[in-house]
């Protein structure tokens, strides 16, 4: 599971109103080399919840020099885009779980895939 995917996930346990962002408890994280595509990164940034990305990167110990807030004119800042690219696409959680910040419910991550399925009672 890439942090880009994580940025799009919200806990949907019944009754939960503050289910975002999910906390990440990783037991296995891999770094994968992914071809840098500045256009892709530039276009994804406006769709991200930036603080959730920073929090996730921090949880995994991969925050490095990412700023707490978006820099203006980032489209032209290749160094910045490369940092974002790394955190969004190259850090992968292989095993672990996502945790609902409100209910504590754990969603397992298995072989890189988050399992967001709920039981009948929780939906």
């Amino acid at each position: 599971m890439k942090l880009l995917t994580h940025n799009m996930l919200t806990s949907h346990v019944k009754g939960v109103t503050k289910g975002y962002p999910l906390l990440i408890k990783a037991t296995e994280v891999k770094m994968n080399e992914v071809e840098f595509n500045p256009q892709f990164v530039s276009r994804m940034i406006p769709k991200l919840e930036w603080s959730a990305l920073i929090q996730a990167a921090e949880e995994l110990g991969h925050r490095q020099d990412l700023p707490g807030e978006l820099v203006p004119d980032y489209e032209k800042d290749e160094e910045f885009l490369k940092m974002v690219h790394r955190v969004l696409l190259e850090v992968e959680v292989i095993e672990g779980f996502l945790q609902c910040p409100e209910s504590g419910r754990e969603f397992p991550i298995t072989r890189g895939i988050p399992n967001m399925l709920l039981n009948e009672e929780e939906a």
Partner: protein
Amino acid sequence: MTTGFPTPLYSHAGRGDFRDVYEPAEDSFLLIDALEKDAERLQLISPCVCLEVGSGSGVVSAFLASVIGPSALYLCTDVNPAAAQCTAKTASCNNVSLQPVLTSLVDSLLPRLGGKVDVLLFNPPYVVTPSEEVIQLSTAFYLLLMRIVKDIVPFFQVGSRGIEAAWAGGKRGREVTDRFLPLVAQLLSSEGLFYLITIAENDPEEIIHSLCKHGLKGESCLSTRAGNERLSVLRFHRS
């Protein structure tokens, strides 16, 4: 016609670890053909976020990724864990990047994907099968056969998470589609396109009419006959 994009490799689907994954069939290929036919239009939108609900083997998203290229995020959902893993394998076999999420429809992806999906794909379980109510009634009437029925019934049940989740569509083959349709208007971006596979029994005209009320304009963009089924790809966009 366009110079043709190759069909993604998918021979791993339907066997070994992926034996419970829906093997690409006429419906999958019809959807692929519809996307190929729309290649120019899709490229013109320059999609950023693509979402396939019920990706199965992942072959359709892999194809879409070959048409649109690596400048987009390709999310794929499925309720079947084997399908989610198979989608990941299909991605790596075809040198594309797909992000599988194990979930029902788009649970947990809203609200974050609200208004952001540029290409939305759904090849739903569309086969007409007994609805859950019918199954419950039948078991009440046939008490002596209950043990046998209990073994057979899950195979036809809407709402399971194994291979039958891939095709069992319940009443009019619409039970799963109908749960998804209200979400389409929430998901689609202003220029977004939604592609849906239907068979005649699903009453595609009614689906078009229904989404029209949500501000979405739809039409059948491609159809074919496969065995007993009259398959169509419906395409929708914001009006």
